[in-house]
């Protein structure tokens, strides 16, 4: 994976495959502590202890195939940049994944195009809700698909015009947060 936004897109798929209809995505950029924290939490079916132990194994997969690289890849990237990956899961409740990176580590993957990944997730999972919280030191940006759903009523979120509207909103705020505009 070239950047974190692609990891996010990949890992969110695990959540939706596990039957989640809510996904929380939190990105915390803390330049004072020199930390980048990525947290993803879902209300999918969760995992039992045995499965939870196996998910970091590249030859473990929950589906009918031979390998499962999503989690091993981000774990490797986190550890490579002075951080770690931790997963907590409760059967029937959901799963929380936290990846911590040293912010200015040379091997820390860049954030990448986070707005584009969120747009892709909405395009492909328009019935599920995404809660996105992005903080950069003291600044916080919040985005919730539920707010749009309320305003739009019957109009689906994967309508092209709606997606464009949301995309503009996400892109503007993504740049605003880090003082680029």
């Amino acid at each position, binding site marked *: *994976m*070239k950047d974190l936004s*692609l990891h996010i*897109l*990949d890992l969110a*798929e695990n959540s939706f*495959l596990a039957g989640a209809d809510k996904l929380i995505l939190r990105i915390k950029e803390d330049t004072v502590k020199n930390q980048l924290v990525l947290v993803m939490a879902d209300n999918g079916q969760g995992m039992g202890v045995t499965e939870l132990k196996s998910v970091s194994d590249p030859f473990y997969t929950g*589906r009918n*195939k031979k390998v*499962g*690289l*999503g989690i091993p*890849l981000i774990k490797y990237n986190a550890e490579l940049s002075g951080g770690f990956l931790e997963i907590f899961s409760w059967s029937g409740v959901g799963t929380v994944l936290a990846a911590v990176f040293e912010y200015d580590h040379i091997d820390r993957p860049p954030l990448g195009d986070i707005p*584009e*990944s969120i747009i*892709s997730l909405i*395009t*492909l999972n328009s019935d599920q809700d995404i809660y996105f919280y992005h903080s950069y030191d003291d600044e916080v940006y919040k985005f919730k698909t539920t*707010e*749009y759903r309320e*305003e*739009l*009523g*019957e*109009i689906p979120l994967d*309508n*092209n*015009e*709606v*997606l464009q*509207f949301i995309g*503009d*909103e996400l892109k*503007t705020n993504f740049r605003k947060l880090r003082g680029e505009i």
Partner: protein
Amino acid sequence: MKSLQELRDMRKRLEKDMTARDDKEIAKVIIGMGTCGIAAGARDILQAVSDEINKRDLNVKIVQTGCIGMCEEEPIFDIVKPGEDRITYGNLTPDNARQIIVEHLINNRIDTEHVIARHNN
């Protein structure tokens, strides 16, 4: 939010469009969004495909699938038209993906250069 008013105006406009428009779905595009697909650039393919579909105002549903075991051919998508074979295209780039969409969905021509599999539905 950018502008609540803008969003509300859009809702009104779209609601009118929705009632006016009642055409059938002409095809389904299934994009491989497994780890291998994403690592190979599936997100850019998704963006290109949805852009092309919207630009030409085609009623096509975009859905996703996971890894189908042909990781070396990723990015991959399938095009399924009702009553026709399911065609799998591989080694996509945003440019050839756009071209395939136009050829297959509008001109009804299968771009054999990029076909990697074909299934009877």
